[in-house]
């Protein structure tokens, strides 16, 4: 009986996370397992198709979409540590012959922090991270998936990633001057519009630094990768870390 009730989650790890930030993916997996979820990582997965679609080539994402449907149709939920990729699937996944399965996935894909909040209804975490942390609200997660309230709207504030971070022992969230301004990554925008993109990244990083953050965290690695590139060039002491690593409990070997 128990076996049947138990939910099965398909883990979707975006291509660049797979290649550059395996630690974030491992933390996501471990955290979900710790919370009693059965997690599977389909080995044949590649990408959500966003790099093509956002560049104006959505019509070329058919093959990528079909593969995604084949890989993930069988799970109760699909979870990804990337708000941007999760949003792309939610808004744009379609299939030629298996539209029903595609619709199913669009409705059951979750970004990690919204899965923890809305499905698992996590209320406490066994983790410690005694640092001053700046939370970067990635636009696609925030304005697309509504992970947190947006400063433009006249509405009650909330923050799914923020509430989870507050469950971690020792985390001190810093207040930013601009709570939800874009970091300027924007996919191919980061090279096509290099000047503005880099300036946006520099300004975002400066806000965290000015307000005393030791770490910048987010539910999206593309933004973190952008800001990390800038921090490293500036030889800053501020580090980036994916939210899954903090929530999973960082082994205190971090320098």
């Amino acid at each position: 009986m128990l076996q049947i009730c138990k939910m099965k989650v398909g883990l979707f790890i975006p291509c660049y996370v797979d290649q550059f930030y395996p630690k974030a993916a491992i933390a996501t997996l471990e955290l979900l397992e710790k919370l009693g979820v059965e997690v599977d990582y389909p080995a044949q997965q590649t990408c959500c198709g966003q790099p093509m679609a956002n560049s104006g080539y959505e019509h070329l994402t058919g093959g990528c979409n079909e593969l995604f449907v084949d890989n993930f149709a069988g799970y109760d939920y699909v979870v990804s540590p990337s708000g941007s990729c999760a949003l792309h699937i939610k808004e744009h996944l379609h299939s030629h012959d298996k539209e029903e399965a595609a619709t199913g996935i669009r409705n059951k894909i979750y970004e990690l922090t919204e899965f923890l909040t809305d499905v698992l209804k996590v209320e406490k975490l066994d983790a410690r991270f005694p640092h001053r942390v700046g939370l970067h609200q990635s636009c696609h997660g925030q304005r697309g998936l509504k992970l947190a309230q947006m400063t433009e709207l006249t509405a009650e504030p909330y923050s799914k990633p923020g509430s989870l971070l507050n469950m971690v022992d020792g985390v001190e969230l810093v207040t930013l001057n601009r709570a939800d301004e874009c970091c300027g990554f924007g996919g191919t925008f980061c090279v096509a519009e290099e000047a503005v993109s880099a300036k946006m990244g520099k300004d975002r990083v400066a806000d965290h630094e000015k307000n005393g953050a030791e770490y910048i965290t987010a539910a999206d690695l593309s933004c973190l990768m952008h800001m990390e590139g800038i921090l490293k060039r500036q030889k800053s002491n501020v580090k980036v870390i994916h939210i899954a690593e903090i929530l999973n409990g960082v082994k205190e070997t971090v320098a």
Partner: protein
Amino acid sequence: MKNHAELSETFNKDEQRVNWHDETLWWVRQKRDKASHLIPDWELLRETASQIKHNVLSNLGNYLEQFEQNAIKNGITVHWAADAKEHNEIVHGLLKKHGITQMVKSKSMLTEECHLNHYLEEQGINVVDSDLGELIVQLAKEPPSHIVLPCIHKKKEEIGDIFHEHLGSAKGEANPQILTETARIHLRNTFLSRRAALTGVNFAVAETGEFVVCTNEGNADMGAHLSDIHIASMGIEKLIPQRKHLSVFLRLLTRSATGQPITTYSSHFKKPRPGQEMHIVLVDNGRSVQLGREDFRNSLKCIRCGACMNTCPVYRRSGGHSYHTAVAGPIGSILAPNLDMKQYSDLPFASTLCGSCSNVCPVKIDIHTQLYKWRQVIVKAGYSDKKKTLAMHGMAKTLASPTAYRLAGKAGRWVIKHTPFAVSNPLNPWYKQREMPEAPKESFGEWYKKNRG
């Protein structure tokens, strides 16, 4: 012709100036936040405005005819212009008929869109812009860089220099109060001596045939009331069904624009005073084409408040002129490709699709979604770089096949080669101001196989 990326690169050469531009506009955005958050029903107000405009766009033909009939009844002469050229010729024709060679104009983005000033100058007509910001850019021989704050890209010292050269203020004078006085004296003479005045239109009421012009400086009123002939240019989308609907729009407009509760002057023009002529030019100029594009129709709801520009993190750091079109910023980037897809094919890409614009828009235009959709249209129409198209085809093929992906991706080579930000090459634009991410010993896929496989 330089594109948005090139023009922004030039703008970014002076980082201090970019900081100043960004902070000035962010301050306006914060004022907007404060004003809107004070109204508990703000989101309902936006939704209501959006619905009213939806109704207008769905029945545009009927409302236009109703408006025309009522305006004529009121004694206004109504003209129809299919495009910019016709609009300019109608205005010139009216001036010529009366033997007028000088005209005063209050702010109208439509006349910028039609390049009216330039056209009239060529016909030997002198035009003076009476909005302070517009006057400054006119003297500097530049187009406005913002639809509400036309000279927001100029510092007060630069304005001092322009006024010194053209209006005879003291050299080095940069006190805003004194500069405003200087402009005031200059404009007062203009108002008194011009027989023709042109104004824009913020809202036209179908039910009554009247139109409403919103200004903070009262310059539209000064010009119109002192003139023998008042010409009002309006885009056909400026209609609202009834006067009562103004209560929704007037509450939204200036709170969104500058954070003020309402414009200082919201002037209703309904009929000419005895002896005066009043004309309205209804301009299409691509609007009916946009109305026919289902995905982009909503862009015609725009009330030109400028909020999407003030909030746009790209606009604040690239400046209005980088959009090389009359209406800059996010809304301009979805309006301009409708007029000329090739010339403005860069604009829908001048965005990170962060979505802040859609959230501040008082009429709830889905701006960032339309930017995404324009990208698809532009690529399909063939206005994208051929090399990029080729690369995208290669990418699509690899990502559709796990075998090809794994093969190519051995030790992450494929991702490193194809993700635009990770190309390990100092010539890559990513590298100019950013370091590359470090490739770890093993990918997650490899780790998973070892530890969970």
